[in-house]
């Protein structure tokens, strides 16, 4: 393919987008992980939730259940932060509203991840 970038633009860095393909690659890699993890995670939850508190927490605290939950929820929270970022960037054009939603999106996903991490580790200990 023809390279349209000038030597100067290469030296100056990433251009007006101010970022490279990191978002795209992160979205795809987390997608590949989720294709495998999410069916196993949701099926495991669905088949254990009927047993009440004891059975559910025993599953979530078991090595398989805890690791599966952390893997699936980590990939999901990472993937959905990137996904909602794209939705906000596409549809919200007022700079202040956009900034609030983008920061909120990041903080919600980071906060939920810590809450999930703490909960699963508490059940596993």
């Amino acid at each position, binding site marked *: 393919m023809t390279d349209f970038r000038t030597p100067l633009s290469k030296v100056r860095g990433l251009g007006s987008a101010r970022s490279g393909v990191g978002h795209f690659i992160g979205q795809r890699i987390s997608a590949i992980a989720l294709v495998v993890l999410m069916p196993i995670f949701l099926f495991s939850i669905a088949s254990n939730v009927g047993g009440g508190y004891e059975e559910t927490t025993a599953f979530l605290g078991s090595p398989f259940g805890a690791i599966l939950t952390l893997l699936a929820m980590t990939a999901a929270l990472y993937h*959905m932060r990137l996904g909602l970022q794209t939705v906000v960037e596409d549809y919200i054009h007022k700079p202040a509203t956009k900034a609030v939603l983008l920061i909120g999106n990041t903080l919600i996903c980071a906060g939920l991840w810590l809450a999930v991490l703490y909960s699963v580790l508490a059940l596993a200990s």
Partner: protein
Amino acid sequence: MDNPCPEGDPLMAAPSSRPLSPHVSVWRWHATMASSILHRATGVANYIGAVLIAVWLVMAAAGPEAYAVWEDAMAGALGIVIRIILIGFTFSVSYHLLNGLRHLAWDAGLGFDPKGSNLRSVLIIVLAAAFTAGAWIGAWIA
């Protein structure tokens, strides 16, 4: 000169040989458009679903009293509403996963033929709905 707009759209009444920019309001719905919009909509729905799963995990970790709030809600009239939401979430996740596989195929440069794209759009919606129905009927029987 040929009329570029035989349907007679008033917005495009002036005859011109220049390419027309698409008017969102006069676009016919088609399968690929529906599946593209549905991918975003189910993505946002899955976001809400993940928030609910996280809340549920915190309730489970907070102890039997906190988890009883969830179990009481599922046992009561609210349980019907929660189950309807969960059925919607099942469709949302299964659709987003299947259409996500198609996105990965697109990234590899596969699956851009118009006829096949329309077919796969319909097929993925039908498969997601069929899986949702099968999973919930299966869980109800079991």
